[in-house]
């Protein structure tokens, strides 16, 4: 008898404990907010890059008139990214997510081609405006990398937290959260355009 009542108490206290640490409920909510915040940063940094491009194109145009093709490719890639409708729940939507990633990767590769072309124009490279833009572009690419890495980390934490026990039960019966999409490394997108003097 004694043993039995002790066991009940033990089970009860385990449950109280689980409830105290939230049975993962709060953790999962917090982690999802973490993913959303990290995604916000990703979008903002990509937007920042997009805002930079018209200036860059203008400066390059002034010196490198013959590189119409490359410039057009950059402008088109930018237009494509700009025209894209990013749905609110993109981080839950693998299809929209991969579209977003693809468009941004197109932008990245168009930009890196432009940066290669620029190598042929020493006057342009010496231009102070261009140097400034280059720093801004490098900084932006770096921010994108940082934001993507942080987003992936947040996704990893979140995805783990909804899959481990006992959180998976809480999620199954209460929260119904789905796994979030991480960025996959891509040859074009993962690497910032290398600009060497």
């Amino acid at each position, binding site marked *: 008898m004694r043993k039995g009542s002790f*066991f009940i108490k033990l089970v009860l206290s385990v449950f109280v404990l689980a409830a105290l640490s939230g049975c993962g409920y709060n953790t999962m909510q917090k982690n999802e907010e973490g993913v959303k915040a990290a995604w916000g940063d990703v979008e903002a940094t990509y937007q920042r890059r997009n805002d930079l491009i018209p200036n860059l194109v203008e400066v390059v145009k002034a010196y490198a008139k013959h590189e119409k093709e490359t410039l057009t490719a950059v402008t088109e890639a930018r237009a494509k990214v700009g025209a894209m409708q990013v749905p609110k729940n993109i981080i839950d939507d693998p299809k929209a997510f991969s579209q977003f990633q693809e468009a941004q990767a197109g932008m990245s590769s168009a930009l890196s081609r432009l940066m290669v072309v620029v190598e042929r124009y020493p006057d342009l490279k010496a231009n102070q405006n261009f140097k400034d833009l280059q720093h801004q572009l490098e900084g932006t690419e770096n921010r994108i990398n940082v934001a993507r890495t942080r987003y992936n980390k947040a996704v990893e934490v979140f995805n783990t937290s909804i899959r481990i026990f006992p959180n998976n039960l809480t999620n199954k019966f209460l929260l119904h959260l789905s796994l979030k999409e991480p960025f996959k490394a891509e040859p074009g997108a993962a690497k910032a355009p290398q600009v060497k003097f």
Partner: protein
Amino acid sequence: MKRVFLFFILLLCCVPFTAYGLDVPRLEGYVNDYAGMIHSSTKSKLEEALRGFEQSDSTQIVILTIPSLEGENIEEFGIKAAERWKIGHQGKDNGILFIVSKQERKIRIEVGRGLEGKLTDLMAGRIIDQIVKPKFKQSDFDGGFIAGISALISTMRGEFKAGQKPVQRKQRNFPPFLTFLLFLGIFILILGSLSRILGGIAGALGLPALVYLTVLPVGILIVIFLALVGLGAGFFLPSLFFAKGSRGGGYRDHGGGFFFGSGMGGHSIGGGGFSGGGGSFGGGGASGDW
């Protein structure tokens, strides 16, 4: 058996995992000259200037020189160092990390989020290109550091004031110490239900270990004191659970006293010396080489 198994699973769920980068050196002060590029007289001059600047403006600028990046990208290393050291103050995010890698001849200025408005990537790039680089090219490292730091200081002056309280968000986390303490209690109960002596031993070993690992390394006297407390708890706690039903209310009060009363108060972060203040970085800044 099953209970013990369940307990371990629960315990595993709570083990914090930390990811460490490989080779960010220790933060020793304003000037961390691991590559040996800065003269000692220059170093003390720089440290004085940076300390003065932090006292007046609260913005933290830290210099790091490393012998080699060992194949790593300076941008990646920079953000890693910034995340580890957390330069700048929490809520203001006003830290700047000035990194130089000697072998690769690379320079990077890593700018905290709070300073990105004033010290834009463009400004940081200009400081590198126009102020630091020419001096470094002539192997005048001392001059380069002094000129670069004074350019940074004059750019940042007035952005933040010392003593200004940043907006603090309230943290409502369940402190890890308490979670572990609760689990320790359960553990003692399980062992104590088998034998009181086992419970006592678990308490005597567990409590000091817990405090030592999660709160702060304490002295031997406190360890002994905690061991005694744990021993007492290990003996006492199970017997309360075994008490007949009518005394159930009593154990609750005591349980509360045990669990929360002996909590050692808040954590102490950074036991003296120089440390970052929890500033965050978003990858802003600029790089260059010489």
